[in-house]
C-alpha cells in the first residue's frame, strides 16, 4: 500500500504542454500497473503566463482511499520527486499562486529526488539550489530546457525523456516497462519509446548532503487578516520614485515589494555602457519599466524587476550593446552600471566573458519549421 506524488515545476505557457504530457504519462503508466492516480495543474497558477513559474502534479496510489488522503489538500504537501523543466528555476521561483521567492526544492521529501533537464554540471546546479536540512538526490537529464509556445509544440521528446528518467530514479512510482507502454499507447511512436529508454539508461544521480547548496536569501509576504486589510477592497498604490543615495539626478521608479518577477527570467540583458548611445529605446520599450535612469543618463536594467523578455536587445540599434545572456551565467542580481562605474576595465572583461560563446536558448516560436531545425541541431 502506498501513495506517491510527483511535482512538475515549469515555465508557464512555454512548457504547459510539456508539463501536461509528463503528468498524464505518469498517471497512465500507473493505471497500466493497476494503480489509480490524478494529473492536475494548480488552479491558482492559471491562466499560465510566458515564463512565470507554475506547477502541475501527478499523484498515484494503490487504493482510492490513499489517493483521497493526498487530494483532500489543495495540493500535495510533499513530493517524492520534483521535476524541474528548466534549470534556471533552480535559483528559486515566484509564482501567481503564492507570495515571495520559494526554493525549488521546498516541496521535496527528505531523500526524494530533484530531476532536472540541464546541460550544466551537478556541482553548478547544487550551488544554485537552496540548501536543505535533509539530504536528497539530484538527477540530471543532459539536454537543454525545451521551451515552446501555446499552439505549436516543440516535440523534441523532452516529455518522454523525463518519463524514462523517472522510471530510472523512481521505479517504485513507474517502471520502465509500464512507462514505455504508456508512451506507445499515447503517441504510437517507436522513436519516443527509444528516447525514453535512452534517457532511462543515461540518467545519472548524485546525492546532495544536508546543508549543501546556496544560502541566497528568499523573500516572503505575510497575509494580513480581515481586520487588518483595507475596507472596500482597496490597497495602497505604488510610489512614483525611490530616492536612492548616489542616484540623485537619475530616476528609479517605485516598484512592488510583493511581486518582483525576476524568477521569470531565463536570460538577462547585459549592457555595454561604453558603446551605449543613450538612444532611450531599451528604456522606452520595456513593458516592465525595469530600466533605472542613472545620474549620468544611462539606462540600467534593474535585475530585481527585469523578467528577461529580450525586447531591449531586439530594439537596441548598437551591435552587442544590449545582449541577452542565459541566466545560468549569473549568481546574483548585481547592478551592472555600478560594476561599470567602479571599474570600467574589469567590467568590459566581465561583459566579454558573458556574451562570448553563450549557450543557445529558444524562447518560443520564431518561424515555421524553426523547432525542427533546433531539434536537428540539438541532436547533432
Amino acid at each position, binding site marked *: 500500500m502506498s501513495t506517491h506524488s510527483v511535482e512538475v515545476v515549469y515555465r508557464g505557457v512555454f512548457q504547459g504542454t510539456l508539463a501536461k504530457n509528463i503528468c498524464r504519462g505518469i498517471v497512465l503508466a500507473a493505471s497500466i500497473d493497476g494503480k489509480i492516480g490524478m494529473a492536475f495543474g494548480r488552479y491558482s497558477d492559471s491562466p499560465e503566463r510566458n515564463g512565470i513559474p507554475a506547477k502541475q502534479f501527478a499523484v498515484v496510489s494503490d487504493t482510492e482511499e490513499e489517493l483521497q488522503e493526498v487530494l483532500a489538500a489543495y495540493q500535495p504537501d510533499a513530493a517524492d520527486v520534483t521535476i524541474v523543466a528548466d534549470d534556471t528555476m533552480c535559483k528559486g521561483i515566484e509564482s501567481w499562486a503564492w507570495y515571495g521567492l520559494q526554493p525549488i526544492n521546498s516541496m521535496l521529501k527528505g531523500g526524494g529526488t530533484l530531476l532536472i533537464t540541464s546541460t550544466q554540471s551537478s556541482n553548478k546546479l547544487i550551488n544554485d539550489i537552496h540548501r536543505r536540512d535533509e539530504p536528497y538526490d539530484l538527477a540530471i537529464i543532459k539536454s537543454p530546457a525545451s521551451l515552446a509556445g501555446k*499552439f505549436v509544440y516543440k516535440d523534441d521528446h523532452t516529455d518522454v525523456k523525463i518519463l524514462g528518467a523517472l522510471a530510472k530514479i523512481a521505479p517504485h512510482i513507474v517502471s520502465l516497462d509500464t512507462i514505455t507502454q504508456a508512451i506507445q499507447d499515447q503517441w504510437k511512436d517507436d522513436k519516443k519509446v527509444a528516447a525514453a529508454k535512452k534517457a532511462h539508461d543515461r540518467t545519472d544521480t548524485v546525492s546532495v548532503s544536508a546543508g549543501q547548496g546556496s544560502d541566497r536569501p528568499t523573500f516572503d509576504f505575510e497575509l494580513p487578516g480581515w481586520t487588518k486589510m483595507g475596507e472596500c477592497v482597496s490597497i495602497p*498604490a505604488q510610489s512614483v520614485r525611490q530616492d536612492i543615495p548616489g542616484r540623485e539626478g537619475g530616476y528609479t521608479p517605485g516598484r512592488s515589494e510583493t*511581486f518582483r518577477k525576476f524568477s*521569470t527570467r531565463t536570460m538577462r540583458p547585459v549592457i555595454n555602457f561604453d558603446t551605449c548611445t543613450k538612444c532611450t529605446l531599451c528604456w522606452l520599450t*520595456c*513593458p516592465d*519599466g*525595469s530600466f533605472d535612469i542613472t545620474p549620468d543618463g544611462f539606462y540600467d536594467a534593474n535585475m530585481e524587476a527585469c523578467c528577461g523578455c529580450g525586447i531591449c536587445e*531586439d530594439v537596441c540599434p548598437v551591435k552587442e550593446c544590449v545582449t541577452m545572456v542565459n541566466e545560468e551565467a549569473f549568481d546574483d542580481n548585481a547592478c551592472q552600471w555600478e560594476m561599470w562605474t567602479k571599474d570600467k576595465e574589469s567590467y568590459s572583461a566581465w561583459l566579454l566573458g558573458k556574451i562570448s560563446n553563450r549557450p543557445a536558448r529558444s524562447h*518560443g516560436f520564431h518561424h515555421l519549421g524553426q523547432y525542427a531545425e533546433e531539434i536537428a541541431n540539438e541532436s547533432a
Partner: protein
Amino acid sequence: MTKANVKSEDYTSPPVLDQWKGPKKAAHEEYYTSGHRTCQGCLSAQGMRLMAKAAGPRTIVLTSTGCMYVANTTYYTTPWVVPWMHTQLGSCGSSATGTAAGLRALMRKGKMKKEKINVIAVCGDGGGIDMGLSAISAALQHTHYNLLIYCYDNETYANTDIQVSGSSPWGANTTFTPPGKLHRIMHKRWKKNMAPMIATGHPECKYVATVSPSYPVDNLNKIRKALSIGGPTFIHSLNPCPKGWDFDPMYANELGELAVESGAWPLYEIENGVLTMYGKSKNIVSGRFKRRPIREYLSRQGRFAHFTDEDIDYFQSKIDDMWEKWHVPGVLPFSVE
C-alpha cells in the same frame, strides 16, 4: 508635464499636454510601474505604461476585466501609481462616464477642489469591441465630459486563455477555434474595423486614433492629444501578445512593426473630422512605402501555423482590398459611385 496655462478654477476645459518631440523629451516618471504579472514581452502592459506616462499624475484609470486587470493587480500587488479601479467587462464606457460625471458634479457644486483630472477607461478587445461596445458608444455621446476610452487589442480573450473575439484575425488558432481534421479554419469572421466605426458613428467625438506600442513616441503623443482636445475621445491600440499569438516575447516590438508595414494595422488619427495617416501607413497610401507581404507577418506567429498557401493568399487579398479598393484606403471599407 501639464502646462499651467489654464485657470485653476477652470475644470471643464481639458488639460493641455504638450506634444513630446522625440523619445528624449518623454517624462521619466512611471505611473504604471513594475509589479505586474503579465507575460514576458507583453505589449498590452507596455501600452498601459505609455498611456500612464503620457497622462501624468493627475489621472484616474479604470480598467475592464481582462489581462490588464487580472495579470496586473493580483491582491496586494499593483503596478499603478495613479488611482486605479477595476470595472466590469462591459463597463469601460460606463466607468468613464460615471467617474467624469462624479468629478464634474462635485467640482461644479463646490464639494471638491476644482482642477483637471484625466479620466481614462481601458478595455481589451473582448471588453470594448465585443461586450462593451454599446456602453462605449453611449459614453462618446457625452460631449461635456472629458474622458478617454483606450482599447488595447491583443486580438483574443487572452486572460481567459486565448479565446476568439470579434477582433481576432480571420483563421487564427484560439482555444475556441482550434484547427481540426475536418475544419482547418474554425474562425471565419473578419476583424471588426473598430476605430472608423467609432469615428463615423459619433460625429461629435473630436478625436479617434489608432496606435501601436511599437511606435512609442507616436503612441505617447496621441494619448496626450486625446486628453488635451476635450470631450470623449477614443484610441484603438494593437498590442502584440506573445502568449496568444504564439511568438518569442523578444520579437513583440517587431510584430507590432510588421502589422503596420504589412498593412494589417493602419496608423492614423481623425481629429475634428480630419483624417491624417501616420508614418508607414501614410507612405503606403502615397506609394512611397511598399507593403510587406502579409506572409512575413503571419508566418512568425504560431496561431497561424496551420495556414495553407491558399489561406495566406486569401488573407493577402483582403489586405489588398483595404488599400486598393476602399474609399479611404485602410479606413473606410466601401467605395463611392
